[in-house]
Structures are given as structure tokens and as C-alpha cells.
């Protein structure tokens, strides 16, 4: 049942998606999603690998186009949405490093680009926001170090600090705890508690919640591209048990989102799913 006509009354909810569907390489992956996230909500998007939770988050941030459906961010249709400074995104990445050394401070400062005009040096407010973000994730003393010298969990905290630096009020976090040790998971949970206390809206994609379980207001569970549960978190993993066990066993992560399970790989140089 496609619902393509946009609602004439502007919602102020951070996210309103109706009848959302996403195809990758022509194959429908995520279908029939109706999801409204209210301001200040802490939502955990859960499900097994290949259930489409990362794809859904990438659609919500505009990285994947919706094949059908209407998405509004803060009441504005995605197509017209310009206010990206209100959105913070922590992509699913195994590492914050690239081919050239970069300091923790530099990576976090790139989060200020949503608020910096072209060719303008960092303002005092920019510097203060970067320092605050580093404080919140507890890496202020590592600011001058190269990111590649940090542990995996610390690099995830750098990526979160980068999103924090832009001072957004809607956060998307794509599996920030994948492959992160317990001490760093606790540090992440502290950071997210801080965000929640500040009234931010959080959409967290996770396999398991661990130390973040107490923060979750609402759990959305996906299976095979559809929402199968939407409601309050039910047990200590924040996941309702009934009928879902078979999917929750798999814990293999796929840290490289470019090679997606949903698309058959193409063996010819000029073809390929440009998504």
C-alpha cells in the first residue's frame, strides 16, 4: 500500500517516514516502513545482519534514495531539507583513519563543517565546541595524537565526538559498539546518556545494547527488511524474545558497507550498483 502523498500539515517530529522502501541494485531490501521518531526519543533499531537496519538508517540520512515513501526531517521533505547542522551521523566504520595521518582534533573539527562558511578559519565557538565534544567522549588528553594510534573503541568515540561537534539535535549511530571492548562500550553509553540528558533525539543501530540498554525508550526490531516490533524495550537486551530467536543468534559484523550482502557482485568493470 504505497503512501506517496506528502502530509500537508508540517510535522515537527525529527523523523517521519511513511511507506518507506529502499532497493539496492534493483532488489527491494527494506519495505513498508512507517516510522515516526519524536523529539527527545532514544530509539534502538535492532535486528540480525541483513535485516535492513543499516540500510534504513542510510535512507533516513539521505545516503540511500527511497524507492517509494515520504521522508520528512524536522517537518521538511528530505528533498528540500537543507538544515544538515541539526543532524549528526556516526557511520559504521571499523576505523577513523585514512591514508594520511590525521590528529584526533582534526577529525573532530571536521564535524564543525556543517556550521562553517567556506574559506573561513575556525571561530572561537568552533574551537569551544570541538573541545567540549572531546571532553564528553573523554578523549581531551588525546587531541594531538594521530587517530590511527588509538584503539578501535577510542576511534569510535572520535567518530561520535565528530558528530557531537556540530551540535546537532538528531543523532544517527550505526553500530557504534561493533567490535568494541566493554570498557569502551561503557564510555560510549556515558556519552549517549549525556546526549539524552541534553534532550537530543537518538537513533541507535545495534546488535545488542549492553551498557546502553537503560537509555533506550523504544525498540524497533527489523527482520528481512520489515519492522516486526515497535514498542518499549522488553528485556535486558532491549529485544522482545517471542519468535525472534533464530535471527538474533548471528553476530558476524560486516564493517565494510560498500560491499553489501543484498547486491550480487558484478564482475564487469563498468557496471555496478551505483546505489
Amino acid at each position, binding site marked *: 500500500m504505497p503512501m506517496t502523498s506528502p502530509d500537508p500539515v508540517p510535522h515537527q517530529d525529527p523523523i517521519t517516514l511513511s511507506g518507506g522502501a529502499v532497493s539496492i541494485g534493483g532488489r527491494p531490501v527494506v519495505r513498508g516502513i512507517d516510522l515516526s521518531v519524536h523529539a527527545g526519543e532514544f530509539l534502538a533499531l535492532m535486528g540480525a545482519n541483513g535485516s535492513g537496519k543499516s540500510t534504513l538508517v542510510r535512507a533516513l*540520512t*539521505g*545516503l540511500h534514495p527511497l524507492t517509494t515513501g515520504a521522508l520528512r526531517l524536522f517537518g521538511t521533505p528530505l528533498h528540500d531539507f*537543507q538544515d*544538515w*547542522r541539526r*543532524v549528526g*551521523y556516526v*557511520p559504521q*566504520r571499523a576505523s*577513523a583513519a*585514512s*591514508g*594520511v*595521518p*590525521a*590528529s584526533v*582534533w*582534526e*577529525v573532530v*573539527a*571536521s*564535524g564543525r*563543517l*556543517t556550521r*562553517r562558511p*567556506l*574559506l573561513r578559519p575556525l571561530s572561537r565557538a568552533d574551537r569551544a565546541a570541538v573541545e567540549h565534544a572531546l571532553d564528553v567522549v573523554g578523549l581531551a588528553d588525546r587531541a*594531538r*595524537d*594521530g587517530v590511527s*594510534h588509538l584503539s578501535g573503541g577510542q576511534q569510535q568515540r572520535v*567518530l561520535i565526538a*565528530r*558528530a557531537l561537534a*556540530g551540535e546537532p539535535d538528531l543523532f*544517527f549511530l550505526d553500530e557504534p559498539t561493533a567490535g568494541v*571492548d566493554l*570498557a569502551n562500550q561503557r564510555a560510549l553509553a556515558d556519552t549517549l546518556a549525556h546526549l539524552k540528558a541534553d534532550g537530543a533525539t537518538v537513533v541507535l543501530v545495534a546488535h545488542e545494547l549492553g551498557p546502553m540498554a537503560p537509555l533506550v525508550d523504544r525498540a524497533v526490531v527489523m527482520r528481512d527488511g520489515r519492522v516486526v516490533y515497535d514498542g518499549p524495550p522488553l528485556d535486558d537486551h532491549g529485544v522482545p524474545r517471542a519468535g525472534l530467536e533464530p535471527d538474533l543468534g548471528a553476530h558476524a559484523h560486516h564493517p565494510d558497507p560498500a*560491499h553489501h550482502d543484498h547486491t550480487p*557482485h*558484478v*564482475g*564487469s*568493470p*563498468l*557496471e*555496478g*550498483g*551505483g546505489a
Partner: protein
Amino acid sequence: MELFTLAFMQRAVLAAVFTGLAAPAVGTYLVQRRLSLMGDGIGHVAVSGVALGLLTGTSPTWTAVVVAILGAVTIEVIRERGHANGDVALALLFYGGLAGGVLLTGLAGQSASRLQEYLFGSITTISRTDVWVTIVLAAVVVLVCVGLAPQLFAVAQDPEFARVAGLNVRVYNVLVAVLAAVSVTVAMRTVGLLLVSALMVVPVATAQQVTRSFRTTLAAAMAIGTAASLGGLVISAFASFHARVAPGPTIVLLALAGFMLTWPLGVFLRSRQRLRAPFPAVQPEGHEFTDEHPHEHGPTCGHVAVPHGDHVDYVHDGHRHAPHGTHYDEH
């Protein structure tokens, strides 16, 4: 020093300095994207551009700029759309460019030595107009690379984050491709199309042996590039009194020598960093006491000291000794 009063030598020095600044500036962003060989690919495609200029009787510099930009944008498009086999498509483009260039030069009735000026550089025969073109193009490349550094850095570091931050990632990617193409043609007269990638990549590889931040890497790469390019020119100029020494290869070999000298230092710094990275501050399961110890651990004992929570562990024969009162804990 009399050498530098000669007009051709002054032109060569100007071209060397500006090329040395511009090539590593773009090169830093290419290395950051792990596209170190993109400059090489553009260089191969630009050979066709030069040949087109020779064939049509127009300035090879300008036809090379146009063809290199077309090639660079094509490479960028293939990269953006491509899956794992993007590199095969790039290879097709490279060899097509090189073969087309050699074929067209033959059709134009030009000798191979004319093409060789562009393949391996010929900085001392550079004309007054070419010097101006080099200076202007190199200045544009440097200004864009430094001025838009925050944006270009963010896009290369994490394109998905940059897109959600509202940056037009495709525009910035194409911009880098165009800048790379322009600096390839700028460096064409200095080190030549087949060696141009060296001037884009080797200074960056050298700089990152010792740097920890992006800004210092960019600045150091530009300084090293200029030093190598100027130094190579001067060395080849003085050596040419005794033997036939081409400036292009001299510049590249000097840059490589710089890398070979810095590399051991980088290996040392990285291994020290790894050994001294703090141990995770978790409560140890238990202690083993070692009351007898041949010496007291301290800053001068020679054992690697690693921070561990609120104290320091000394790595000793594969153990971790933590001072505790009058004895050492083993954990």
C-alpha cells in the same frame, strides 16, 4: 652561481619551485583516498593530449590539460560507480591513453624524442609562456588545496559523513580529480608524464613517516616536494658539466632518497608508539608477587615504561612489573 644568471635556468628554477609546491598538495588528498596511482593514470591519459597538440599544431600544454581533465573525471566517475573491478577499468584507460599518444605522435610525423620531452620532462627547454602557465596553474592548485583544506579533508576522510554534513561530495571529488589533472600537466615539463606521480606521492609518503596530523603532513609534503624539485634541478645542472644528467629523473631519485632516509625514523617512531601505548585500565584478575628484583625500575632502567591506569608497568622479559610498595606486582 653563474649558471643562475642564464635565462633558461631562471625559468627552470621558477617551474621547479611551483611544481614542487603544487604536486604534493594534490597528492596529499590522493594518498588520503588511497588513490596514490591516480596521478600515474592521469599522466598516461595526458600523453594522448600532448600527442593531440602535436598533431593539430596547437600548444601541447593546453591539449594535455583538457585531455587530462577529461581522463581524471572519467576515472572519478568509474571510481564512484565501480565495484571491486574499478581498477580494471582504470587500467584500460591508462593503456589506451599511452598507446593513443604514441600512435598520434607518429601520425603527426613527430619523432619519439619530441614526445620524450613530455614523457620524462625537459625543464631546461621550457619557454617563457610555459613558465607563466605553470606558475598560474600551480598557484591555483595550491590556493584551492590549502583554502578548501577543511572540506577536502572531510570528504576524503569519510565521504558518507561529509554527505550527511551537507557537503556536496561529488563536486569535491570531481574538484580533486581536476586539480590532479592540472598538476599533472604542470609537472609534465618538470619531471615528465611518466614520473609525475612520484612528485605527487613520494613527498607525502616521506612526510607521513614523522607527522601525526593532516595539516603538518600537507605542509611538510609541500616543503619536501619543493626541496626535491629544486635540489634535483641544481644537482643535474652542476652534474651536467661532467655527464649527461636529466633533471626529471634526478628530481624523482632525490625525492626517493629523502624517503629512504626518513623511513627508518618512521619505523622507529611507530614501533616506539606501539610499545608505549597504555595497557587497558581494567582491574587485574590477580597478582603474583616478585619480591626479589635485581634492580629498581625507573626512567633510566632501560625497560619500556607503559602507563596502566593510575600507575606505570615496566615490560621485562615478557612480564609486566608494576611497583607496589616495597615489591613489584606481576600482571
